[in-house]
Structure formats: C-alpha cells, structure tokens
C-alpha cells in the first residue's frame, strides 16, 4: 500500500483512567491529547471561549472531556466518556470514568474492556480511600497493568521523598490485591511534567514518561489463547442458489485458537465434528483467535443455534446451572433481591437466574468482608450464588474475561442491574 504503513497497521491499547474529584484526571487526558496534537484548533478555540466565560485562569482542558451540558455547568464528569488518540506507535482508546457519583459502576464499566488502568493520586493527599477503591476494582476486573500517576508534583516542590513515601504507602496496600504489573510515575498534568516529555523538574526520576510507557507496555499476553471457546452468535444460511448448502456459525472467538481440520465438540449437545473452514467474508483463514469475528463451517450437519458454544473435546469449559460470582450492583431503583429472579446474559446466551445466596459484601475501602449487613445497593460489590434456568458454559473470570463474565437484567425495567465475574 502506498500510504504510510505506520498509520495503516498499528497496535491498539485500551485503557481506563480513574481518579477522585479534583485530582486532575481530565487535565491529564487533555494534556495527553493536547501534546499528541489530537486536539484540533476548533476544539481548542471552543474550550478557550468556555474557560474565559467561566473565569478560569488557564485554558481548562477538562472542558474537552466533559461533553454534556450538565457536566460543564457543574464542573463534573457524569458518565464514562470514550476518547481516542494515536501516536505513530499505537492507537489508544481511553475509557474516562468519573471519580464521584456512581463511581464504582462507571469504573467497572470502563475497566471491563481495558488492558491498562491509570490511577491518579494527588501528591499532597497521598493514598486515600478512593485510591484503594480504584485499585481494588482494577484488581477485581483483572486489569493486568496498573499505572499509578502521582500527580500535582509541582505542588509538593517535585519532592522525591514525598514520591517515595506515596509509593511505599501504595505498595503496602496493594500487597493484598492481585495486580500483575504496577508502574509508578511522578507527574504534573497541569504543566506537562513526565506526561509526554521527561520532566526537567524531577531529574531524580529514572523511569519513562507516561506516554512512552503507554506506547511500549506489552499487552500481547493478556488474552486467553489456550482454551478454545467459540460462542455461536448467529447462524448464516444464505438460501441462495450459489450457496444453497452453506451453513456458517458466526461469532467472535472468546478464547484459544481454532484451525481448519480441528476436532471440535459442540455444547450443549456434546456432538463432535471437524472444522471444515473458517470464513472471514470471501477469504478462508488459516486460524482464528480472540478477538476475531469469523464464521466456522463444520464437516457434519449438526443442529447448532445462538447461545451454543464450539470448543475442543480435550479442553471444555465448566457446564453448570450453579454460579459462584462476585457482582457489582448498578441499580439505584432497587437493591439485590434475595431469591430474586433476573435475566442473565452470558456470552451469546440468555437465561434466567435466581439469587440463591448472598455470602458477603465487600468494604472496598479496606477490603473487609461484611457479613452482618447483606443489603446490596448501588455500587456495592458482593459474592453471590446464582442458579440458572439452563446450564451455562463458562470459565472462571480469572482464566477468561469473555467466558467468565455476565450481566444481570431486570425483567420489568429492562435495565442492566449488575455485572458479574465468575469465580
């Protein structure tokens, strides 16, 4: 191709940002976008105008991410906002989550698709409750890479001692969590220290600036390429003359690697067959792995429909109607009802689920398990046992984020009321 291959063929990194009110998260995102020249002239003019109207001293980069009128009026971020920027090395998708109201719900949502989480700490305040909460969620959602940005270093005179103190505070706390890789970076989002360019104010810091870390962190091993899982999403039957007998099982690979010729087993029927071809539009591909969307054709005619799963005979998921999971409750209308019935959506399958037991609720500020009060309201995280109306085919969330996750839907309001991670 004649254009710059750098643009045509890039890595993609999805990350989430979490922070408390006023710790400069929106400023950091604004800074990343501004310094990578992602902000356009007309956007900059618009926020310059608004900053002036609001009487802000500097151009308020936070106005760039706060898109709704109510957010600008109240100076807060209401919902998860998605932002995009690219450098010649990588394309980035940011799920920017607010730190205050509905914090847990929004952060869980943003974290569910992220490879990396940035957690901001105000250098003046150090590790506070919200830092612990955000770290716990990153660990619960199994984000493998966590970057602790110790922000507002300019307000503590770029002090190395203060930085080390905070690193120690956090490391002590995080020893109780399950985070694969932690990186600490002292920054000033407002002035741009260690965001895109190395800070001249902190010569004592030997690590990389944030952007360099984001560009180079290795995320290739995050997806499961061992346990082959293919939830059938749609059955393609053209009924045309040319493709009269075509029957393709369309879906997105949720784990492992599939190749033509592979022996497969179909759940729940248990029938076996061989992969005849893996089709991606007009071409047949040699192998398919997560997160590719393909259509699989089998050698034998088996009755397969949406919600079924194609797996390998010697590596099968758990098949059960009893689910043990951590859930995050989203609904502000109702609390989780003991013995309550919900609709469960898991991979491409939909069933009913009944709450059989609530074991404990987490105090996510100190990681204590609460067994005395089992009222599960909005933003609460709890361990529950569910019984489903038909068997699900699942893995633990620790093993596979796609086959180990589910949501609960309220059958009356149709709202998504909980997210679950299977243990």
């Amino acid at each position: 191709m004649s254009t710059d291959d750098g643009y045509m063929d890039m890595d993609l990194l999805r990350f989430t940002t979490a922070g408390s009110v006023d710790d400069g998260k929106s400023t950091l995102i604004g800074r990343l976008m501004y310094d990578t020249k992602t902000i356009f002239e007309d956007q900059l003019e618009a926020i310059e105008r608004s900053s002036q109207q609001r009487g802000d001293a500097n151009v308020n980069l936070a106005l760039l991410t706060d898109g709704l009128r109510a957010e600008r009026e109240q100076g807060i971020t209401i919902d998860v906002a998605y932002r995009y920027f690219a450098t010649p090395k990588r394309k980035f998708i940011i799920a920017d989550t607010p730190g205050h109201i509905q914090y847990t719900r929004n952060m869980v949502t943003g974290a569910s698709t992220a490879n990396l989480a940035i957690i901001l700490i105000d250098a003046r305040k150090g590790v506070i409750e919200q830092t612990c909460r955000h770290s716990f969620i990153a660990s619960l959602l199994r984000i493998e890479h966590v970057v602790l940005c110790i922000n507002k270093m300019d307000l503590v005179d770029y002090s190395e001692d203060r930085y080390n103190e905070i690193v120690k505070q956090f490391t002590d706390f995080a020893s109780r969590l399950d985070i694969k890789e932690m990186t600490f970076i002292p920054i000033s989002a407002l002035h741009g220290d260690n965001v895109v360019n190395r800070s001249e104010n902190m010569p004592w810091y030997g690590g990389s600036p944030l952007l360099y870390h984001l560009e180079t962190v290795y995320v290739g091993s995050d997806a499961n390429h061992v346990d082959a899982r293919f939830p059938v999403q749609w059955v393609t039957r053209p009924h045309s003359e040319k493709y009269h007998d075509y029957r393709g099982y369309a879906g997105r690979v949720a784990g492992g690697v599939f190749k033509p010729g592979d022996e497969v087993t179909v759940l729940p029927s248990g029938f076996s067959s061989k992969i005849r071809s893996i089709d991606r539009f007009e071409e047949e591909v040699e192998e398919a792995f997560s997160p590719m969307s393909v259509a699989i054709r089998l050698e034998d005619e088996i009755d397969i429909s949406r919600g079924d799963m194609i797996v390998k005979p010697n590596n099968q998921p758990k098949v059960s109607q009893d689910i043990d999971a951590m859930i995050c409750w989203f609904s502000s209308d109702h609390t989780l009802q003991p013995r309550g019935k919900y609709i469960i959506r898991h991979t491409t399958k939909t069933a009913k689920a009944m709450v059989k037991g609530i074991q404990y609720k987490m105090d996510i500020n100190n990681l204590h398990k609460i067994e005395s009060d089992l009222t599960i309201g909005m933003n609460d995280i709890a361990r529950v046992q569910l019984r489903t109306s038909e068997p699900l085919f699942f893995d633990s969330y620790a093993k596979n984020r796609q086959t180990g996750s589910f949501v609960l839907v309220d059958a009356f309001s149709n709202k998504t009321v909980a997210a679950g991670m299977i243990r």
Partner: protein
Amino acid sequence: MSVSYKIRHLEQLESEAIFILRETAAQFERPVILFSGGKDSIVVARLAQKAFWPARPPMPFMHVDTGHNFKETIEFRDQFIEDIGGELIVASVQDSIDQGRAVEEKGPNASRNALQTVTLLDAIEENRFDAAVGGARRDEEKARAKERFFSHRDEFGQWDPKNQRPELWNLFNARKSQGEHFRVFPLSNWTEMDVWQYILREEIPIPSIYFSHEREVIERDGVLLDNGEFLTLMEGEKAEKRIVRFRTVGDATCTGAVESTADSLEKIIEEVASARQTERGGRADDKRSESAMEDRKKEGYF
C-alpha cells in the same frame, strides 16, 4: 510457543463492528441501517455485507432524505445499495413538511437538518423498526463521546444521556418496552482516520464530492457553503470558484467544504493526519451553540 496472536487496530475495530451488527440482527426483530451515502454509513454497509456473507444483510437500508442533497451523493447511494443487493427505503423530509408534520425554518441560514428528526422518528414508527443502525462515532463530537453501542430511545425517540445502560465486556442489553427503540453504533470506537484507512484498505467506492474539485461556493461565517439551488444568498455575499472537497456529506445548506487539493484516498489520509480542524468544524449546524448536538440528540436526532 513463540507465535504472537495479535491483530492490528483496523482488524480489531472491524471485528468489533461485525460483532455489533450480528448482535443487532440476533437481538432485534426489525432492525434498519441508516444510509446517507456519506463515508461512515458506507463503511457500516460494507461491514454489514461482511458480517452476514454469503447471505445478504438481514436488514434494509433507509435514507432520511432532506431533499437538499448533493446530486453526486444520491446517484452514488442508489448504485451502492444496488451493488450490495440491499433494499433501500427513502424517508423524505419534504413529505413530512407537506403533511404538516414539520415546519421549514426561515431565513438565510434555514436548514432542514433538524427536521430530519421528525422524518426519522415517523419512519421508524411507520415501519415498526426496533433498531436503527447508524455510522456515528464517539470522536465526532463531545456529546457523542458519551454514546453507547446500543443506545436506548424512549417511546418519544428521546435519548437520556444521564441514565444510560452500562455496557460491559461483549455483553449488550437490547431489551425494551413496546414502542421504544434502539440506535446502534457499530463504529463507536472508530476515528475519522480509521474510517479513511479502512476505505483505502477495502477499496470501497465513495461519492466524488469527498475528492478535490472546483466548485462555486459562498463564504459565510468562515464556512464555505455550496452555491447550489438550496442556498439563499445574503446581502453582500458573492459566489466564487474554489478548489475544495467535503469532509462530510450532510444537508447541502449547512455542510461546509474545505479548500483542498486532495484528489485521492492517499492524499485525503495525509490531509486528515495533518488537519487542525475537526471534520465537523465545517458544519454550521454544530456551531449554533455549545450543546447543539446534545440538544438535537436528546430529541431523537441520529
């Protein structure tokens, strides 16, 4: 095992969008793809062709026609849909005006852009569509950055941005009550650059007005508008010939051209890479106020 199982950004975005389209077909009874002949809806149409191949997309295409089109776009629209074997429904803003359902704006900046909402919502109701798939992207505009893949609309077609359903992992909840519908945005995570790169990679045809050409334009409030039959000249305005192209193909009365010599996809991509204005920077409809898009979207706009 040293093999790295990794796919690059365009393939990931394509894979995600195909997943969304298949999910739409599976979870809704009567979905429709909104097709304007603009580059984003062309990409959606191409993805739909791929998602269900070798079958035809199991949903029709619908154009909400303001009547104020660039003729190149309409010719292109008909040819493109014929080529992929799709079914085209045209919902006309003129019909809505004639039936008294919508009232034409007055004045030199009158535009039918906002009236499309009436026609769109009427067409959704008439055809009993329960999902309308669109090509909107989150990077286009700040209100759109808060949009979901599966975006709920109440029985009045309204969007409630403060009360949206959370979307986690690959799990989408399309349950709704009678009379409600969804908007579905498979290109949510694409940027303008991704769209152009994909068009180049896939060699997808696009309307000629995206490429540089000579055109008679009027400069109004810093925006270059086509001096066509739908534009009313204001006092002191003079049409002049410029070498321009369009970055979006909306209603001809409010879609601005940019001066450009980019006459190939490669040159457009170079131009996008060095652009200092967003693609909607030339859209007079967004300039009406800071929350112009949010207000229109709440009412049921695309």
